């Protein structure tokens, strides 16, 4: 975007000149206005993109089994989602008579059990064909950042990893080796670091906006915010960020009532 150039030049010019001239001030105000306009545009672009992704994911899987390609595109299309966007996807899939989990071809229990489903099961559970799918979807949802994608700093959002059962073969072995799901991780891995250097092939990020926001070179700042913004995501059952396995199921219901308000 053309607007980026004036921002940098003004900051450099300011150092020698102690008293900003009228023209300087005007130019800086213009730069600020442009910066905000760009942010708003980025927000609109990403929101439109998320909507398109929801539409694409509505139709998956195309066959009776998800293909590795479909699994990969699911993981990459939800990258810019906030948790609420995934909820919106579940809602849309249910309207189409599909299980809330994108890679599942079955009907949700709200359809298969019928009108009684809502009092036999918790409100969140009826959106899926089974508890397995509900859990797989939660596994993805937990990884999604609460910060809207247009405000995310580069590297703050790790690539989305699917539940082990749904990972394409090669990635699966890699995940088994690391033995740790991404959302429990405390230190950055190679992927994170590549992302921070901007060497990721993932093309979703609005680079043109983010470049403006990189101020410090230090990596400690993004690391801190990552922890801070993860916290509201964690449930009350988490112990020092670790989610005991047995608590995961109760969590589904809790999370959904929160999101409904």
């Amino acid at each position, binding site marked *: 975007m053309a607007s980026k150039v004036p921002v940098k030049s003004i900051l450099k010019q300011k150092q020698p000149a102690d008293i900003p001239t009228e023209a300087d001030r005007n130019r800086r105000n213009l730069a600020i206005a442009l910066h905000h306009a760009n942010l708003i545009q980025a927000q609109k672009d990403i*929101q*439109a993109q998320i*909507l398109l992704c*929801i*539409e694409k994911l*509505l139709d998956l899987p195309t066959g009776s089994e998800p293909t590795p390609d479909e699994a990969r595109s699911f993981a990459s299309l939800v990258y810019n989602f906030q948790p609420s966007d995934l909820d*919106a*996807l579940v*809602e*849309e899939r*249910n*309207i*189409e008579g599909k299980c809330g989990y994108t890679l599942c071809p079955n009907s949700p229990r709200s359809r298969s059990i019928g009108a009684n489903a809502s009092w036999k099961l918790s409100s969140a559970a009826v959106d899926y064909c089974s508890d397995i799918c509900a859990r797989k979807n939660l596994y993805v949802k937990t990884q999604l950042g609460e910060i809207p994608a247009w405000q995310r700093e580069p590297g703050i959002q790790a690539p989305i990893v699917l539940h082990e059962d749904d990972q394409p073969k090669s990635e699966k072995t890699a995940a088994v080796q690391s033995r740790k799901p991404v959302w429990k991780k405390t230190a950055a891995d190679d992927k994170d670091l590549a992302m921070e250097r901007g060497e990721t092939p993932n093309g979703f990020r609005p680079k043109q906006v983010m470049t403006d926001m990189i101020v410090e070179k230090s990596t400690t700042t993004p690391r801190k915010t990552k922890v801070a913004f993860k916290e509201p995501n964690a449930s009350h059952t988490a112990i020092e960020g670790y989610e005991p396995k047995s608590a995961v199921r109760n969590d589904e219901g809790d999370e959904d009532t929160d999101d409904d308000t």
Partner: protein
Amino acid sequence: MSDENSRELSRLWRIFRTTKQMCADRGYELTEDECHISLDQFRAEYADSSGAPQRHKMTFTARPTTEMQKKYTPLARPGQPTPEPQIGTVHVEFNGDPNLGVKGLKQFAQLLSEKNYYTGIFVTQSAPTSSALKIIPSLLPTVMEIFREEDLLVNISKHELVPKHTLLSAEDKKRLLERYRLKETQLPRIRVDDPMAKYLGLRRGQVVKIIRKSETAGRYASYRWAI
């Protein structure tokens, strides 16, 4: 069962009448009879043999009157001596789906663009999902408006406490601002999602004239800028 049918029929009859009156108030070509159809007539035309209303039969379209076209014609500019009116045929559908998502709304949008309708009004029984509503701005310049059935049970413009709202043409708006030496941003505002703004289909930037009756001052007019 037939009791339920007749209740549902009279409910939809009210909704249908309000919708037609709303279109007529905006300036579309509709006859007085159409806007005040009787319940018996409505039953004869739009109910099946069991007396249940058939929403898909209630679909209608209407063309703007020349007066409405004039109101929606932008001011002439150096490059554009004779601008086109920014209004055209309205297409109205009534949707009874229990759930309305992205796909349902996309279908309606597709019909609007295929048939080249300027405005589409979708009267829905259920609330569309938030994702579905996000489609609407992406359709511009095609205008899609969503109304919930329950919001059209009563014609709010006919309520005695609601003052008369009329849209100003671009010409009238210009004259108003010149007379008071105002910028449009200095006018009091009305949100485009205000019930009366929705009723008139106000667009951002338009100015509406509101005429109130007051016991002390008689009738007086005020103006609102739609945001």
